[in-house]
């Protein structure tokens, strides 16, 4: 009898001994849910994945989290559609048991998955989804380290005013982002630039022929064109505006940083010249030690300057690692508490999440700058910051008369 008990005990000890190290080494999974195929902005998703992977490598090289557990990324494609985003989030939360999900780019998708984040109690991070309502709902598991559209629209209204443009046309898509841009720009014009006129056109994102809308804008004779397309529609607006004689004769401001990507010139050729565009990162910016190390490694690995999406995804993964260590647990509620209590080193400064008013809830905002291409095939590193005044490195240039 005693012999049997001894044998059973030995067997139990053996099992525990064998499985304990394996349990201790179980990786902590972080989901990356981002657009990697059309109709989403797949190029943006690729940069986000690139940055998130570098973040995981960085954390793992420093010994991982929670006493040696490695970070494992699980990448899912949301294709820029709420349906695929929802399916991807469910998989990440239930099957993969991800402790958090980063990489959200399209506001429509983010709006859909943040409801699931509450349901599954898994924090979700907007990497580049900027619609106001995302953080305005005051949800526990929604975080954002990106600009919000009211700020974007106020900023471009100030720029339009500073340039003295009296008639501005905004063309954008019928997504949460596009509709939000129209609402916020109307509000900003009404409060900050009441003497100016604003014409807004919202088109169906699936439409590829924008000629009638651009002719309508041309016939309205605007002083400036605000391009609110994301991904392919952004390119279609530039190409077709050029073809109807609207661009570059009428200055254009693009609502986000897609022109910073190498694909911009490949897709547009000389038609891309003279476009102004909003960015959140510029190669001349001073970064944190963490951001600088990332930039150095990125340039060594990819032979090009990093793109903001990559920087932001990297920061989100490393700040999650910091928060997991601070929480001493991968429990989602503990993680949220740690995220709210902590201060984390990001790529450009210290990131903290407070529960502020309106859309400033669990929100951290990077800088916003207006830059301009003035030569064909101009490298992004060479563009000048033309706005805001206190940060500018060059003057905005009007298109020379032909």
């Amino acid at each position, binding site marked *: 009898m005693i012999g049997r008990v001894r044998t059973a005990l030995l067997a139990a000890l053996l099992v525990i001994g064998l499985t304990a190290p394996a349990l201790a080494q179980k990786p902590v999974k972080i989901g990356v849910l981002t657009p990697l195929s059309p109709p989403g902005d797949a190029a943006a998703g690729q940069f986000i994945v690139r940055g998130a992977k570098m973040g995981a490598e960085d954390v793992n090289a420093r010994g991982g989290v929670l006493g040696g557990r490695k970070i494992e990324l699980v990448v899912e494609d949301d294709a820029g559609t709420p349906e695929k985003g929802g399916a991807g989030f469910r998989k990440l939360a239930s099957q993969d048991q991800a402790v958090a999900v980063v990489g959200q780019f399209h506001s429509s998708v983010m709006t859909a998955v943040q409801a699931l984040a509450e349901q599954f109690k898994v924090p979700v991070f907007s990497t580049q989804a900027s619609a106001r309502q995302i953080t305005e709902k005051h949800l526990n598991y929604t975080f954002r380290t990106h600009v919000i559209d009211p700020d974007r629209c106020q900023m471009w209204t100030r720029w339009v005013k500073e340039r003295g443009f009296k008639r501005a046309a905004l063309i954008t898509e019928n997504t949460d982002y596009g509709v939000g841009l129209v609402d916020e720009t109307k509000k900003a014009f009404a409060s900050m630039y009441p003497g100016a006129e604003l014409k807004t056109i919202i*088109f169906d994102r*699936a*439409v590829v*022929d924008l000629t*009638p809308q651009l002719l309508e804008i041309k016939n309205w004779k605007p002083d400036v064109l605000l391009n609110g397309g994301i991904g*392919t529609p952004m390119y279609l607006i530039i190409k077709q505006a050029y073809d109807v*004689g609207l661009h570059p004769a009428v200055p254009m401001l693009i609502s986000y940083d897609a022109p910073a990507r190498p694909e911009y010139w490949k897709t547009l050729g000389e038609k891309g010249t003279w476009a102004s565009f909003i960015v959140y990162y510029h190669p001349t910016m001073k970064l944190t030690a963490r951001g600088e190390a990332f930039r150095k490694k990125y340039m060594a690995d990819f032979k090009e300057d990093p793109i903001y999406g990559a920087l932001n995804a990297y920061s989100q993964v490393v700040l999650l690692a910091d928060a997991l260590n601070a929480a001493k647990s991968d429990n989602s509620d503990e993680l949220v508490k740690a995220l709210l209590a902590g201060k984390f080193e990001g790529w450009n400064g210290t990131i903290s999440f407070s529960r502020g008013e309106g859309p400033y809830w669990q929100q951290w905002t990077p800088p916003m700058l207006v830059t301009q291409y003035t030569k064909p095939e101009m490298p992004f590193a060479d563009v000048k910051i033309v706005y805001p005044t206190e940060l500018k490195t060059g003057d905005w240039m009007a298109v020379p008369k032909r």
Partner: protein
Amino acid sequence: MDAFILSQYVLSGVVIGVIYSLMALGITFIYSIMKMINWGMGEFYMIGSYVQYALIATLLGPRRWYLALPLAMGAVFLLGLVVQRFLLRPMFVGGIERRDEYATIITIALMVLFRNLAIVLGGPNQYAPPDYARPMTLGTLPISGNRFVALVGTLVLLALFYLVIKKTWVGRALRGAAQNRVGIQTAGIDVLRLDMLAFGVGVALAAAAGALLAPDFLVYPENGAISTFKGFEIIVIGGLGSVLGSIVGGVLLGVIEALGSVFLSAAYKDLYGFLLLIALLVFRPTGLFGERERSV
């Protein structure tokens, strides 16, 4: 609004409508002969645009884009022959009872396959071949040179198609197959070969649309979706099986969408075509130039 501006909107609708009619013609031609709908038509458009871009970017260079067009059409024509021979022919020789369902499943599977292959091979990003011509003015309409080339190319292809169908022996055989598949076999014509030819020509027309519009509408894995969508609308408006209906339906759809998006709202551009389509289905279910099916 003055007449000048109105004429710009109408012209822009006419131009895009004519170009879309190429797609509709491909769909309706395949339907006429094989009595099946090719749901993967947009993917043949997409492949045409990719082949065009690849040829210009690698072998031919931007100045010889016009050589890329027949090559892109030829490549997709050959692909169409292979697809028809190995995937669709069993529908007619294998004793399959539910041919419509069979064709639907096969062409939808092809759609998914080709789209994903494009992502795997070319990545998810968009590409654009260099412009075929400088921007110009067509009447009152400022238009891209590419769009003008696409318009002329479409008109040439439509004329060629008409001549082949009306004036050649093959064209007569195809018309015969469209009228009576059994009857034409009694005249000693191999209808299965005609099927192959029709499918190849139909998808090559879609490829031509893709190649012609590539600089304007870009090259990416889902670029065929919208033109397929328009193509189906056009054939219902114009009448399934009618070549003239494809052209008239295309122009009508283009103009209505252009005017609706300017005078009503651009956000509902696709809705205007559907309203026209619904009205036609109510008052003229066969479409503008379609004929009632006759059975004996």
